[in-house]
């Protein structure tokens, strides 16, 4: 059974601050994760973390997501989103 997904209010500002390409990619990832929840490893409290990498317009971006699985509501609730990015042509750190 696949889930729906839902953003907790405190997760929204970070998502809205992302550029639109990354927003789309994160939504694609979320839709894939709710279709395939086995990709997440939930702890005994029903929370999970997930990270991914994305390259767009010569910018490398790593994003980090936290979730709560709500079995009763059939929902994957997004608790937090963090992202770090670096232009590919930028001198290395």
């Amino acid at each position: 059974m696949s889930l729906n997904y839902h953003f907790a209010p405190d997760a929204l500002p970070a998502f809205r601050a992302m550029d639109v390409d990354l927003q789309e990619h994160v939504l694609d990832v979320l839709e894939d994760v709710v279709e395939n929840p086995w990709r997440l490893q939930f702890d005994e409290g029903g929370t999970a973390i997930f990270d991914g990498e994305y390259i767009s317009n010569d910018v490398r971006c790593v994003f980090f997501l936290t979730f709560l699985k709500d079995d009763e509501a059939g929902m994957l609730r997004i608790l937090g989103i963090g992202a770090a990015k670096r232009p590919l042509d930028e001198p290395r750190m």
Partner: protein
Amino acid sequence: MSTIELLPSLGKPNAEQASAWIAAALAEAAALRRYDNRLFARSSESAEIESCKKVHAVWRKWADQAEAVLAHVRPLLDEGQKTIGVDDLESAVMRARAMLQLTPEGQARALEQARRGEGVDGREMRREVERRKAELARSGSRA
């Protein structure tokens, strides 16, 4: 003296030294990731949040040191020398920096919100992103 203080005084590393520093930083990150279940509290209890803050502090210190390692090996990269693990270490640093944007207190608050069922449906956020993308396309076509 910590790694971050020592590296600038060591001068340009050779390939073997650079690989060893990168492998050491990656190994420490791999060990820290075994404690990912301690990054965020499952309740708003202050003791649990304080415990999570300690894990965050260790990750912050690791990221600072890993960036010092990357700066240390940069002369080799600038010369075009391949150094094993650089991309992996950069990804690990970016993951740590992304993770550290989420605070234990903020996550505990979001967890309470989620348990109360508060928030916005993903389909609504998809529509919001599509509207934003269309607006950007329109403003771009006018430019």
